[in-house]
């Protein structure tokens, strides 16, 4: 059981402030904090981990107030960006660290974890010799070794290339499900957020903008920020228009113009500049868009557009 409650948690720095934030993250949920850099998502993570103290508010783990507890007393695992592996220890000693400081036997657990993250036999390697993906796998194994009920991830995949990222993303989700963890992941990558999250929390300028189940947020964003950041819809005159509701027809008299067209396999995407100068995205079956530079007429399906509430 590991439920996380944030009650009016706030933290002010010289150049940045996290606004009072209240969130409830249920047991075994996978929450993704999504937002541009400087949105406060990493600060929120560090507060939950106990690496920072809030100026106001309370943090509860399973109903227990841990606001004043230091990181080492919380039993919350944290996977850092680029791993933050101990350079003076080998792979096995890195993974064993959390067990050693508790005086627990480590050998079998280390082997089990290296197997889990697909790094069997890497125990004796020097950390400096690992590739980016291997480093993140070791960081994951290290965080999981002391069997924390809560694991936090601070942009764990940001420094990896695309194929590795997808690979490791699946591993994260699988381990989350198998171990029954409560996970919180910070990212600025919307694909990653959509693929991993049970619950999505969008943040901007130190405050939560919107939260909810990813599909619901994608289909019905309540704010223009969410719509744009998730790439779910164009925002035109206070209306949300999904790209696949936009129809573009070649018309020599049209006042719009196709700016770019991109073939994406099963479908095609286009960017169109309206008479107002605003650019919107359109998506449709292959062959539905005129060539870039063509004048055109734009219409959208009003039934699929939505009035923006905020």
């Amino acid at each position, binding site marked *: 059981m590991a439920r996380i409650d944030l009650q009016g948690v706030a933290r002010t720095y010289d150049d940045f402030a996290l606004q009072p934030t209240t969130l409830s993250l249920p047991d075994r949920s996978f929450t993704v904090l999504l937002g541009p850099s400087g949105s406060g998502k990493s600060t929120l993570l*560090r507060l939950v981990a106990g690496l920072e103290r809030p100026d106001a508010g309370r943090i509860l783990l399973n109903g227990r107030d841990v606001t004043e507890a230091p*990181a*080492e007393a919380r*039993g919350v*695992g944290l996977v850092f960006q680029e791993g933050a592996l*101990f350079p003076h220890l080998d792979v096995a000693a890195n993974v064993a*660290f959390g067990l050693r400081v508790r005086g627990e036997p480590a050998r079998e657990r280390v082997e089990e974890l290296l197997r889990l993250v697909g790094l069997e036999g890497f125990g004796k390697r020097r950390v400096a010799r690992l590739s980016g993906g291997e480093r993140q796998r070791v960081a994951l194994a290290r965080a999981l070794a002391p069997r924390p009920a809560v694991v936090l991830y601070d942009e764990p995949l940001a420094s990896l290339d695309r194929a590795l990222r997808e690979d490791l993303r699946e591993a994260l989700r699988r381990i989350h499900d198998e171990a029954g963890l409560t996970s919180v992941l910070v990212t600025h990558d919307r694909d990653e957020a959509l693929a991993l999250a049970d619950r999505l929390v969008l943040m901007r300028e130190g405050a939560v903008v919107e939260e909810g189940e990813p599909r619901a947020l994608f289909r019905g964003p309540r704010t223009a920020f969410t719509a744009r950041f998730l790439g779910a819809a164009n925002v035109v005159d206070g209306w949300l228009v999904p790209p696949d509701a936009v129809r573009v027809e070649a018309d020599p008299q049209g006042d719009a113009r196709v700016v770019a067209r991109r073939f994406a396999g099963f479908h095609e995407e286009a960017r169109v500049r309206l008479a107002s100068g605003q650019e919107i995205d359109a998506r449709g079956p292959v062959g539905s868009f005129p060539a870039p530079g063509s004048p055109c007429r734009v219409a959208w399906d009003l039934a699929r557009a939505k009035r923006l509430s905020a």
Partner: protein
Amino acid sequence: MRRSWTWLLPAAFLLVFLAWPLLSFLRLAGPPAALGPWARGRLAASLQLGALTALLALLFGMPLAWLLGRHRFRGRKLLRALVTVPFVMPVVVVAGGLLALLGPRGYALRLLGHGFPFAGTYAALLVAHAVYNVPLVVRLVGDAWAHLDPRLEDAAATLGAGPWTRLRRVTLPRLAPALAAAATLAFLFGFTAFGTVLLLADPVKHATLEVAVYTEGIGVFDLPVAATLALLQLVFTFLAALAYAWLERRAAAQERPVDEATALAPLSAASRPLAALGFLVAALLLLPLLAAAVRALDTPAGWGLDAFLRVFHDQGALLYVPPLRALRNSLVFAAWTVVLAVPLGALAARAAARSGPLVDAAWMLPLGASAVTLSLGLLVVFPWRVGPWSLDLRASAALLVLVHALVAFPFVARAVTGPLRARDPALGEAARTLGAARWQRLLWIDLPLLSPALLVGAVLAASVSLGEFAGALILLRPENATVPAEMFRYLGETKPDPWLFPEAMALATLLMLLDVAVFAALERLRPGRAGGF
């Protein structure tokens, strides 16, 4: 990689002016068994002084290293610069300052109203060594600390490690190379101590190997015994230098340094007491220098600049040469030292950057050979005569320039090696693909990138020359005396002239200001970090 022959020049220089004189001198060495009981005790005395120096430096240096290496606060840069000052001061200045504070004519005596033993005691020696080496620890360890990724301590905390465990298992192991390097250098300072022993302690009872080489070689003129002692010192110093070079490489290889801005955090309430201790240590380090300057103004004629005026007008009544002349001599020697040591050091660094720690250690050799040994060696070889040619440099001031250049050269080499090694080879390749020829790359890429390091080397060379006095003591005719040599005579003078001490302190203050000016210029000129010491 292309074969390069540039290492031949520094190598030849070392061969002719270091190896040859040294070997000629050391060849005179007898078996250690032939040493008398006093001479035999010198190795133990040197080892003991080295160990105690390192211990004191770590003990008092660590709070400051932690303060500067982990925290962001107002005045941090100033504190860091101030703490470094004692380290770059000539021995005569620090020794003079300590005497002005604690000596028989010092302020402590006036305040307490009764005397206590200081000058001539082992304690005085240890205090001076602490003043010199605490800054070394603060800079080497503090700067290393400021570039260690603090997220690793965070990671350890989330894994359940408390503050003490984090320090022991995460921080100290990563600081170990810097700690060991600082300890090694502090050890060497104590092991080869010369000026501090002569000026502050009992030169017989507390004599190190270096002092003994001087007394046996110059005082008693027993060259075989002096050579045996010098050989002993050389062996130990070389081992320590080798350890240092190796440790430094390990430090560079282990962890990617992070930006200082990410590593520093504001002072927390819990860390305030330790921070206060750090400030206290810093203040104590600067106290002797302050005392020297104050004592120079505190004259028999009341408060004022009289002592300084006497320095400029004294025609050598109290001394061997007019002080103004000594000041000029010092500057001329320093200039020649820079001219000789910087190009040689740069070429040596180039060779070291391309090869192993053994080459690093080879360039450090002159440090181990020490000014006393070098001077004696040069005196042995340079009444040189082959057929009709002869070169007798014994009476020439050129010998001193050689000694200074030899002692300064490792500092230049060390200052340049690091940046040279860290240089991104892609830059040279990029320049090549853009059509830059070898000389253009040297002029437009390498030189601008290395100029901060070269500047550091030049300043270090100048300051080594300004402060060195063992060589000046041995090699110079009185009329060529440098300020430190002059100061040494001042401080050793027993004439009961009340002007003697203020005048010595005035000279010390001038030397101090000269050094501060040189280093302040350096801090302003160099962009960012360039090399260690």
